[in-house]
């Protein structure tokens, strides 16, 4: 059955985010000949639409008033796109904008949204959304009693397939009013390679014992290569103030899917694993042989990170 699917896109630096492109590709796979459309809001939106391979229609506004995300400005624009695209399914990124847009948009359209989904399938004409629950201890699959079905979707849940961009672009209205006002923004994400893009993520946990422990974690990332490896942290380490929240891996942090994930002095709580279990290889360094991290790691070293990590760095230097 042909299904119409609308993707609520996001821009960074005038380009669609990787998750936007993943969702458009995912939508193209689910549409079965129906229309795939994408909304883009902010400076460069109309030009950025061309990058959305797999979408037939773009709904765009280049109004710079949308550059800073305020849900109350985005919602009327996205609703205007919904009115025209008449989708059976709406896909939204599980991101700062998406976390807020999903529930509010669903409420305004008298329907429901499933949050933080990892898979969406069409089961004989009905969309089903699957997501982790109970901190990753469970997997829940939902159906929808109302239409359109809506889901916010985790990064890397769909592969980018590319293809031709939209053949038509429909202009959306410019930004209106918002009751909440953004009065400041502090960027604290580490410069350079992001943990969500890195092919190797080296994360430290509470077992490091002190903020200084991260120096050793960073040294390991550097030994692997600053173009390949980025540094993450468990929530316990972030809560202790040892590392910034932007680097937190897990359910309430970032989801990472590197080739190698190093968990250094991290116990492997389900909420942490929710953010790294999609890694190709997990390496655990922990002095407790019974730590849960060893239930998901491919390779493990049981021992004190203070002696193990320098040894790994030495070994890498041998080339």
């Amino acid at each position, binding site marked *: 059955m042909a299904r119409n699917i609308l993707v609520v896109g996001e821009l960074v630096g005038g380009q669609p985010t990787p998750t936007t492109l993943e969702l458009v590709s995912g939508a193209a796979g689910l549409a079965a000949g129906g229309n795939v459309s994408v909304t883009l809001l902010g400076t460069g939106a109309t030009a950025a639409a061309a990058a959305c391979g797999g979408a037939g229609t773009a709904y765009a506004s280049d109004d710079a008033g949308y550059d800073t995300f305020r849900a109350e400005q985005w919602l009327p624009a996205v609703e205007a796109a919904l009115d025209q695209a008449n989708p059976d399914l709406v896909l939204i990124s599980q991101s*700062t904008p998406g*976390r807020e847009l999903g*529930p*509010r948009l*669903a*409420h305004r359209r008298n329907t*429901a*949204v499933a*949050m*933080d989904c990892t898979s969406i399938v069409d089961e004989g004409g009905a969309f*089903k959304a699957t997501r*982790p*629950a*109970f901190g*990753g*201890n*469970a*997997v*829940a*699959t939902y*159906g*929808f*009693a*109302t239409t359109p079905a809506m889901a916010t979707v985790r990064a890397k849940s769909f592969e980018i397939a590319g293809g031709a961009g939209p053949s038509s672009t429909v202009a959306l209205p410019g930004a209106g009013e918002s*009751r*909440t*006002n*953004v*009065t400041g*923004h*502090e*960027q604290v*994400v580490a410069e350079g390679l992001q943990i969500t893009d890195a092919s*190797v993520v080296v994360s430290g946990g509470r077992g490091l014992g002190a903020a200084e422990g991260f120096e050793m974690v960073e040294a390991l990332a550097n030994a692997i290569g600053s173009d390949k490896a980025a540094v993450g942290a468990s*929530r316990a380490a972030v809560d202790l103030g040892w590392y*910034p*929240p*932007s680097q937190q891996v897990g359910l*309430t942090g970032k989801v990472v899917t590197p*080739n*190698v994930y190093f968990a250094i002095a991290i116990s492997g709580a*389900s909420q942490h694993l929710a953010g790294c279990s999609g890694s*190709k290889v997990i390496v655990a360094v922990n002095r407790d*042989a019974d730590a*849960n991290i*060893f*239930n*998901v*790691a*491919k*390779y*493990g*070293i*049981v*021992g004190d990170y203070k*002696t*193990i990590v320098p*040894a*790994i760095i030495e*070994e890498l230097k041998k080339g």
Partner: protein
Amino acid sequence: MHLVVCAKQIPDPETPPSAFRIDSATNKVVPAQGIAPVLSQFDGIAAEAALRIKEANAGSKVTVISLGADSAAAAIKQVLAMGADEGVLLNDPAFEDGDSYTTAKTLASAIKKLGDVDAVFCGRQAADWDMGQVGLLIAEELGWPVSIIAKSVGQDASGLTIQRVVDDGFENVAMPLPGVVTVSNEFGEPRYPKLPQIMAAAKKTVTQWKTDDLGLAASEVGAAGSRLKLEKLSTPPRGVAVEIMPGDTPAEQAAALVAKLRADHVI
């Protein structure tokens, strides 16, 4: 000011995966033996945020509302012990097995019934289902502004000043009142009630409201009113068997590890 805290009782999220069980016939979590349910951690932090606003504004009061069964009174008592003034339990079999929408609709009806509320504080998400919707949906139900995932909540003449956690750092938001704010763990630890406060809270009566008290129909709440239908709940497949690196010294173990990673072509 009249501040409302929405608080949920949940199975302890620190339950080890080995003790976590699902009844696949009912799609429900089987309570783990000997592990008591807890106040969802983010809700305790939301209560802390509300109490600090209360303390900065003489004559203010905090009402804590929970939707849940009889046992959820314990979550209310915990927030009362922290310093909240009144507790309301929304307790009706008709409320059971709802979704985020029916939960928010029911809570919003209770907030409307209280009448004079200036601000609602919720946790960023309930630490069981992790949906992160209820605060936003309460705001939509009430037609109020909302700001989510707060790290700090202050005040100025025009409303609340919120610093919230966003993907690339922090953002400062000014929000007029009445409004809704959801609070994250970056806010910091909630206060720990002392014994006399716990005893005083134990003596307080918790108001109980049912569907009728809220002017709602049974068809609008709980499973009957829900829009998102849970069809399957299962435990994820458990991972691979770990290979512990051989060697008597860190150097030998490190050499074994690096050789494995190179053979896998992942570094």
